[in-house]
Each structure stands twice: as structure tokens, then as C-alpha cells.
């Protein structure tokens, strides 16, 4: 999901993109419990019948399922944002627990939009030898629209549109 806002207070422009998740955290827990219940009942039954080795395998499997839901849940808080305020253009990214923030001079930043094999466009922001990719949670259309938006709002007039490998 992408949320975008124009000038508010000291901020001239900001955009935040997050991955799409169909389940809320509580729904994830509900689904996990619903799935886990039956294997646990079965493993208990077979353990009582003497086949106790079913239990560790059921446990390992449910642990793996739990980890899978946990990993997906942790990624649901990932985001990327661009904030333009005054002379600064700040790019912030969260991936798991790692939050990285890069601040460029608004008027010395280039927008680089490249067409990849297969027709997908990728977007980079580049300034003084550093570049940051943006738009991993955005679709192709939204990345192109954002490139045009940024072009209007930041200072560097050299906007690079090209094919990869050139």
C-alpha cells in the first residue's frame, strides 16, 4: 500500500509504501491455532497409543509453520518512505528491525528510472556518488508516477530515463 501527502507544515512532500498483507496479526494467530490444533490432538492420541515419536515431528512441523507466519508478520511492518522538507530529501527504509535513513540535498538529487528486461521499471535516487533504490513495494505504474512527481519537486534537472545496460 502507498500513502502520499503534499505540503503539510514544514514537509513539502512525503510518500510511504508498505507491503500488502491480507491478514491482520490477530487473524494470523487465529489461523495458526486453527491449523495447529488438529496435529497436536492426533500426536497426543498416537502418543497415548505408544507411538510417541509422532509428537516431536508434529512439534517441529508446527514450529516451522509458526516461524513462517512470524517471518511474514515481521515483514508486514516493512516500509519505504521519502520525505522532502526544506533543502533535505530523506529516504527511510525498514526491513525487519533494520531502519536505514539517507538524507540527500534536495537540489543535488537525480531521479534515475531504468527499464529492466521484461518491461519493469526501477527507480533510484542518486546524489554525490551515492544511490538508493526506491519502490520495492510499489507496482510498475506507481514507480513511474513517483519518478514524474519527484522530477517536479526536486532541484536537479538531469532526469535519466534509459534502458539498462546503456
Amino acid at each position, binding site marked *: 500500500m502507498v500513502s502520499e501527502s503534499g505540503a503539510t507544515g514544514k514537509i513539502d512532500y512525503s510518500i510511504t509504501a508498505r507491503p*500488502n498483507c491480507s491478514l491482520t496479526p490477530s487473524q494470523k494467530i487465529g489461523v495458526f491455532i486453527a491449523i495447529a490444533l488438529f496435529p497436536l490432538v*492426533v500426536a497426543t492420541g498416537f502418543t497415548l497409543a505408544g507411538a510417541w515419536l509422532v509428537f516431536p515431528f508434529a512439534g517441529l512441523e508446527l514450529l516451522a509453520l509458526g516461524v513462517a507466519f512470524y517471518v511474514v508478520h515481521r515483514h508486514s511492518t516493512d516500509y519505504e518512505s521519502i520525505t522532502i522538507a526544506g533543502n533535505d530529501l530523506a529516504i527511510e527504509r525498514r526491513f525487519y528491525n533494520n531502519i536505514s535513513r539517507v538524507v540527500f540535498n534536495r537540489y543535488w538529487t537525480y531521479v534515475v528510472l531504468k527499464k529492466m528486461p521484461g518491461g519493469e521499471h526501477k527507480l533510484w535516487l542518486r546524489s554525490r556518488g551515492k544511490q538508493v533504490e526506491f519502490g520495492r513495494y510499489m507496482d510498475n505504474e506507481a514507480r513511474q508516477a513517483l519518478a514524474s512527481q519527484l522530477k517536479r519537486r526536486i532541484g536537479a534537472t538531469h532526469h535519466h530515463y534509459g534502458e539498462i545496460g546503456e
Partner: protein
Amino acid sequence: MTTAAQAHEAHHDHHPTGIMRWLTTTNHKDIGTMYLVFALIMFMVGGAMALAVRAELFQPGMQLMRPEFFNQLIGVHALIMIFAALMPAATGFANWLIPLQIGAPDMALPRLNNWGFWLLPPAAILLTLPFILALFGIGDGAIATGWTFYAPLSVQEGIGVDFAIFAVHLLGISSVMGSINIIVTIFNMRAPGMTMMKLPLFAWGWLITAFLLIATIPVLAGAVTMLLTDRHFGTHFFNAAGGGDPILFQHLFWFFGHPEVYILLLPVWGFIPHILSAFSRKPTYGYKAQVYSFWAIGILSLVVWAHHVFTVGMPVPALLYFMYSTMSISLPLAVLFFCWIATMWRGAMSFETPMLFATGWIILFGIGGLTGLVLADVAADAQYHHSYFVVAHFHYTLFAGGMMGMMAGTYFWLPKMTGRMYSEKLGKLHFWLTAIAFNLTFMPQFFLGLAGMPRRIPDYALQFAEFNMISSIGAFILGLSQLIFVYNIVSCIRGQGEKAADKPWEGAEGLEWTLSSPPPYHSFTVQPVVK
């Protein structure tokens, strides 16, 4: 405010080429392709074993092989067809289609997906390696207990059992990884607007398959591990002399084994309605009824296992319970049959290859279902148990119901996957040869079973000679006709044949048909919204 696709992992951005693309790929379509190619190869390997079995059974008397080798071929044929052909084929379709059908850019856990696939080749090697080792005097060949591993025979047998135990563990881990990925993908990565009751039936079928795998694989894993410890570590789980119970193994095995039938069939039941609807040019009839029937069958499949062991001895109330509960599965299954037929009813039907396979599938799978009812009856089962009637029944269920369903799906989605149309003429020839040869192979086996021929024997009484000869001729036609299938697929992969349109079938509905044929490396860079 706009809607965006979920993240493409960074490792997708610059995908490697050549062999590294396939070894390291996390792309759902690449992994789906690998599963399907692996399944096709193992289908041919398992089929070759079946042909060797039928060659031996062409005439009474021992013709070509020792009885021990015959038993090994029977057991490994079954294990390969179930675990290395049908299950990977279903997972291959899931990888290819589920993200496309629910509007997700990829599976939720792409690396897990890659690991899940790469466990399969070592497992296939473990299953077949004992044959080769025996040629060098190591061990006495592959597992010869049949695919059921029944104790105490499996406790006493050679190293083939150990290889099979480790192979089953790897295959089980792979299945669980696939199931976890599918559950998380379907629940968490549906496109906005794609509610659970808008999920395509294929996704529903696979979701319940994944639940069944999660519920039953630990039981199989526990059972074969106990077998391993009985064989090598002095335990007596299944050794009556040591206070163990060999019957417990049968219950453990079939607690997994019966749902396994539905694990193999539910994905097919999921995609057949897509095909029937497309070629009848009508919406699927009874979507909700089919979803609820999937659920009912999935749940019932977990509580009916002991009908496989009626003859081993059980209290009468248990016999009655397992008989009636097994028969009750026919009710939701009848609902499915009704919906499939109603989908075609008064439709503008055309019979391209996928539709031929789908309609042929309904009839042949119907025979498998009806003969299952016969075996569910305790009194009848006492006569037919361990006879060729059972062999014929489960081949109508798993070859016609499973493999022919997969063939229908392959022809239906092959143009989407490869961007090329297969040869319709060869496809139809493949169908008719398969359908006729299949009946020629397995219909006589019903009569053999009714006449009392036991299964898993390399030699038989003279009275069974004619039907066995017919069955063997049918099997060779059936086996050879699958080369047409392989040729058609390889032609499409090599880019021969007409270019396929994005929606090659006029009546096809679903998100996957909105993409190009073949779809781009990353599906849905523009995320769809389902209304």
C-alpha cells in the same frame, strides 16, 4: 492513495541465467516448472517399472525376473508415482498458478520454496539407488515391502528399507515446506478484494491439501522413524516378541495413507472445474457447494483410515464405524460430481484436448469412486481385500483421477506457461490412446480380482492368463502413448507450435489469463484488484 504489489525480494531483481538460474531461483514460475519437469521424468521412470511388472505378468510362470526383484519394482513404482510424480506435479501447478490466480507477485517464502524442490532429486536417488548398489553386490536391492512398509516384514528386510525411510523423510519435509508456503501465501498475499470465498477452486483444493499434509506427515514421519529404530536401535515399537504391536504400524501408516489419496486428488478437483467451465463457456456451477464439499471430504478423510485394514481384525463397532464413515465420503463427492456435470449442462461445449481429458476423467474417476464404495463394505472387502480388484480400483482413482487430471491441467495451462500452443491433433491422439489403453489395462484387473487373483504376486494360476495378457498389452500401449504427451510438452518448451494468445481459451476466466503468455518473470507488477 494507490495499491501496490507486495515486495519483490531484492534477490529477484537481477535473476541469474543458465544452470544457476535453476539452482538458485526463488521465482515461483521457475520452481513450478522444475517441479513439473521432475514429476514428468519420474512419471516415466515409475511407468517403466510398471511396464517391467506387466511384462513379467504377460504370461503365467516366472519369465524375466526373480520374485524379489518383482516385489521391489512394485514397491518403488508406487512410491515414485505417489511421492515423486503425482505430488510434485500438484505442487508444480500450485507454484505456477496460485500466485497468478490470487494476484500475488510470488510465493510468500521464496527461498523455502527453492529448498522444498531441491530435496526431491536426492529423495528420488535414495529410492532408486539400491537397485544399482545391488548390481555391485551391495545390499539386496530396493524396498520390497510394497509402498506400505508393513511391519514386521519391513523390520526384517534389507537396506532398501533404510533408503526408502530416508527418502520418505526428505519427501515429507519437502511436502511440508510446500504446504507451509501455500498456506501462508493464500492467507496473507491475496490481492485486495480477493476474499476467501472468491478464491479460485484450485487454490481452495490446494489449501485443504496443505492442511491434510500438515495433519498427516508427522504421523508418517513418526511411523518410519520408529521402524528405523526397531531395525537398528533395539526398540520394539512394532515387534510383538518385544511387547510391541505390528498392527499399530498399519494404523499409523493409513492415518497418513488415506488422506494421502485426497492430498493427490484435491488439487485435481480444484482445477477440473476451471477446465469444464472454460470449455462449456459457462460459470462454474455450485462454487460454494464445491468449497464445502472439499472441506467435508478433507475432514472425513482424516477419520476413515481403518477401512484399509478391515481384514486385520477389529471390534465390530469399529468395523461399523469405519464402514459408514467411509461410505459417507460419497455424499460430498456426489455433490462434486453433480456440480461438474451441472457446469457442462446446456453449455456451448467444445472438446479440445483439456476438455477431452476432463470429461474422460469424470467418467473414469467415477468408476474409481464407485468401486471404492464396494471396498468400503466390510463384508465385500473381506473377499476383495488384497486382490487385483483393489489394484484396479486405486488405478482408476489415482491414474485416471490423478494423472489424467494432471494431463488435463497440463494441456489447459501449457499455452500460458510456455507461450506456445501444443499440437491439438497429437493431444487428441494422446487422449484417445490413453483412455482406451487405460481401460484395457485396468478393467480386466477388476475381473481378475473378482476371480480371486491376489495382488503383488509375480506368478499366477493358468485361469488368470487371458485377462493378464490383455492387461499387459494395454499397459504397453498406455506407456508408449505417454511419449506423445512428452513430445507435445517438449515442442512447446522449445518454442515450436503457434504463438499462444494471452487467453488462448475463449471461455477461460481468472486472473492468470490477464497476463501475457508466457507471463513476465515477475507476475503482477501491476497488482490486480478483484471486484
